[in-house]
């Protein structure tokens, strides 16, 4: 038995039930005062009378309240639904589209029942209730929003079979896309579709994280939408919400910090064991989480030899196990790849000499890029994550902007002499001005000072162990004024020596410290190598895009030569399947559709491992807080709460006549009591 209200907005009228009491309180008469000899007998009489009259007064109050309440509820037009209504069928043929949520959150195990199983049952119930001649289609509410038929079909049995086979996915829900797809299906002209009722049933848990902001009132003229709620609010869930490594692109043997972010979406404090598995190593930490709080757990690893490192963080299992594990695929490079375009600069040889043997914690592989690097087939440009432009004349500024846009860091080393094109600065919108050469007298050379001593890049100079930044002397350098970035080092005359600018999502360094001995003795000073080492280590370029969300297509770029016929992808726990290869002159992109299961996807050519990608669950699906049902049919949307029958919406019994009779009976009862029930005092 359930009740819904057709005019829910009028339901607050039920508060008028308090009116009799309020009227009694507000309209109490102020009786005239009567001086009396003694209240002695009056008090005893009053006590006795009150005892006798109270039942009558209470009865009058109850009947009066019942009258007002029944009358108010009559206006709200309640509809009573009974289980027998399920068998009543429909009143006529309809075109119906079921939008069934099968996103990750629908896999939540709610007291032994998976939400998606409940959704399937609801969908089957609706299909069963459709009358003869009705047609239906099914749109899955996930990241793909696919339809079973694409048009309303009378083959309801096929839809039921499809429902039986389906399982909850690991992908995110896209409510607006699914609703648009459902409307498009119903708006498609079909034969003999005139005069039919068109309805959309959205069967979902209505996760607030997905549905907030989605207009729930359908546009005018579009089919009616019924929201069928599956699941109850207040579900307890914890999830591994994020995992990342620092550095993100490690080199062999480098120490790694892995951070795991754990979120508690429940309203109670929980404690979880966080397990990190990286290759053959395994570490555990315990973490306590306050209600609706997040915590980050740190792990320390040593990067192995050059390979693809699979790192997975897991917490204890709960009602939604899919989000208790998050993967991170790290490509451990043998060395930091640094590119250099020398352009015949005299300072380039000092840079080459500094970078060639080693650069601190990781090996550095310096590759001198030829002029054709600007015309590489990949839009992301050279493979190196950090590129030094030394003696660069400023040509092809647009390509450099593209490299920046692809996440590579660029260090532009300004020469002390010669003309400089500022086209790159214009292209990336950097607010910096490069001017003429400044020559300092020998007796008063230019000296450096840190403008941002606390910057991470200059941290090694803070205690003096890596040399004194003011030691090198500069005789020539350029005028450089930077307004839209951070000046890290500055000359004593105020000119910027090293500046960092955010450009196209990456970093552009302006290096105004000539290495030529005629201009400075920086190349021979003991601060040069530490400064260069920190610059390379901290700006080694982006990690390979190896994190994807379930339901997306995945792709991997490789510079290895591959045979497209032999390339396969190995999903987690599944057989290999062929992968697409998009070839290029120096790059190949390996692609695969339908990474539906979270885990590691290994691309292979035969048995040779080419690369590993991590696919994870969408974080928004872990927050299981739900929207509240919209209990009004006004505007075309009507919600059916958990536990209510969907088809009762139209087969329910209107209660207002009974309520009207009840109100009249209450009124009659009150009159009867007032007239005939005289307390015998």
């Amino acid at each position, binding site marked *: 038995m359930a009740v819904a209200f057709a005019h829910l907005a009028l339901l607050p009228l039920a508060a008028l039930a308090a009116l009799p009491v309020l009227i009694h309180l507000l309209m109490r*008469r102020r*009786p*005239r*005062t*009567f*001086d*009396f*000899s*003694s*209240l*002695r*007998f*009056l*008090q*005893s*009489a*009053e006590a*006795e*009378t009150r005892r006798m*009259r109270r039942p009558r007064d209470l009865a009058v109050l109850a009947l009066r309240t019942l009258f007002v309440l029944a009358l108010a509820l009559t206006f709200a037009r309640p509809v009573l639904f009974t289980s027998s209504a399920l068998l009543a069928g429909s009143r006529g043929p309809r075109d119906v589209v079921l939008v069934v949520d099968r996103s990750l959150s629908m896999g939540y195990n709610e007291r032994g029942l998976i939400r998606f199983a409940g959704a399937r049952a609801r969908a089957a119930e609706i299909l069963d209730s459709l009358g003869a001649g009705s047609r239906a289609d099914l749109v899955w509410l996930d990241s793909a929003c696919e339809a079973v038929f694409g048009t309303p079909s009378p083959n309801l049995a096929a839809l039921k079979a499809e429902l039986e086979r389906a399982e909850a996915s690991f992908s995110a829900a896209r409510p607006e896309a699914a609703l648009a797809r459902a409307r498009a299906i119903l708006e498609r002209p079909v034969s003999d579709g005139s005069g039919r009722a068109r309805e959309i049933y959205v069967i979902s848990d209505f996760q607030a994280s997905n549905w907030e902001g989605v207009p729930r009132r359908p546009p005018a003229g579009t089919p009616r939408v019924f929201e069928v709620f599956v699941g109850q609010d207040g579900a307890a869930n914890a999830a591994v919400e994020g995992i990342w490594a620092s550095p993100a692109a490690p080199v062999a043997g480098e120490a790694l910090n892995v951070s795991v972010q754990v979120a508690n979406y429940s309203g109670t404090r929980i404690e979880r064991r966080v397990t990190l598995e990286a290759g053959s190593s395994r570490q555990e930490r315990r973490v306590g989480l306050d209600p609706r709080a997040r915590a980050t757990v740190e792990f320390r690893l040593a990067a192995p030899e050059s390979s693809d490192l699979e790192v997975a963080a897991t917490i204890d299992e709960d009602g939604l196990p899919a989000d208790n594990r998050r993967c991170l695929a790290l490509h451990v490079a043998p060395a930091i790849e640094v590119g250099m375009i020398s352009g015949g600069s005299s300072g380039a040889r000092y840079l080459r000499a500094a970078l060639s043997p080693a650069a601190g914690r990781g090996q550095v592989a310096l590759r001198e890029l030829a002029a054709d690097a600007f015309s590489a087939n990949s839009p992301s440009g050279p493979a190196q994550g950090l590129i030094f432009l030394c003696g660069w004349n400023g040509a092809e500024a647009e390509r450099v902007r593209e490299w920046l846009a692809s996440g590579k860091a660029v260090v532009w080393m300004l020469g002390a002499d010669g003309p400089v094109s500022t086209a790159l600065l214009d292209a990336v919108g950097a607010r910096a001005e490069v001017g003429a050469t400044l020559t300092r007298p020998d007796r008063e050379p230019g000296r450096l000072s840190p403008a941002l001593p606390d910057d991470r890049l200059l941290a090694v100079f803070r205690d003096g162990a890596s040399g004194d930044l003011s030691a090198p002397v500069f005789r020539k350098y350029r005028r450089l004024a930077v307004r839209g970035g951070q000046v890290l080092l500055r000359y004593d005359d105020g000119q910027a020596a090293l500046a960092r600018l955010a450009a196209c999502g990456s970093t552009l360094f302006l290096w105004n410290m000539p290495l030529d001995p005629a201009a400075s003795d920086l190349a021979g000073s003991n601060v040069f190598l530490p400064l260069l080492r920190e610059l390379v280590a901290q700006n080694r370029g982006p990690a390979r895009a190896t994190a994807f969300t379930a339901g997306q297509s995945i792709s991997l770029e490789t510079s290895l030569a591959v045979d497209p016929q032999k390339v396969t992808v190995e999903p987690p726990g599944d057989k290999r399947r062929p992968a697409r290869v998009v070839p290029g002159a120096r790059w190949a992109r390996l692609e695969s559709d339908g990474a539906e299961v979270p885990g590691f996807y290994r691309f292979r050519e035969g048995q040779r491992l080419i690369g590993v990608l991590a696919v994870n669950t969408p974080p928004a699906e872990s927050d299981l807080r739900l929207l509240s049902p919209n209990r009004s049919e006004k505007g075309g949307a009507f919600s059916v709460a958990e536990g209510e029958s969907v088809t009762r919406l139209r087969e329910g019994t209107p209660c207002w006549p009974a309520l009207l009779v009840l109100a009249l009976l209450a009124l009659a009862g009150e009159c009867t009591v007032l007239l005939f029930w005289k307390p015998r*005092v």
Partner: protein
Amino acid sequence: MPEAASARAVGGPAPGARTGPGRYLRPEDLASLRSYEFAPEKLVEGYYAGRHRSVRRGQSVEFTDYREYSPGDDIRMIDWRVYGRTDRHYVRLFQAETDMVVYLFLDSSASMGFGAGLSKIDYASFFAAALAHLVVRQGDRVSLTTFDAEIRRHIPPGSTGRHMKELMHALEHNPAGSRTRVGEALRRAAPLLRKRGILLLVSDLLDDPADVFSALNLYFHRGFEVIVFHTLHPHEIELPAGGLLRFRDMEDGRLLVTDCAAVRSSYARAVDDFLRTVRALSRQRQAYYVLARTDTHYFSLFDRYLWRRGTL
């Protein structure tokens, strides 16, 4: 208003008005009182020879007994005939006649002020004044004691015109006072009443009846004849038809809001129980009890009292 109607029935003046020799003793009432005579039922104790039998034996015409002669007796009282028969000296004893003392106890508490037209204290004062006149007219003495929680004024017995004037003045300047404590007042007044006589209590008795009659025991034991004039306003016996009213206690100011129609029967039952209790206690102590409703003329009290005594 019922109060006004009762005032007309009594024939009393408007409150505050003065008529004739006193406010409470009007010439037409004096004329009507000529036909009444007030007499005690028990023996009285007086100083002066009068028309009432005394507890003392003395000289009168009514023989009572013989007693053997003892030295000091008046030899004129020896009955020589008895001596001739018995050869012993016996003296004849006669019932002495003396004057009567009437002690008027007038309740002047705040509750006696109830009554819009003719309050209970006005009614009681009319009655007391008439009674005092009656007593003095027949040569007896009358005393007046007004009280509320304590004795407010005590006028010793007297029978002169001046005494009567003082008594009238006391009645006219006797506003309703504070709380009713009849028993306490009676106890305090006991030492003031030296001679036994008639104790006439005029009160609404809105006190603990058991306590009141416990205090009256002092007087019963001393041989007083006690008459209780229980003065009540009709609205105290039957609530007014006023619907919802806020009642204010005239003695302590407490408030009670109630619907008269709803509590009328319960109230009447409670008052009836109270009256029954007072009557029963009066009967036990052999005190005269007269219910004095202020809507009846106080002359009717004389009629009822004297009729009961068989002197009318």
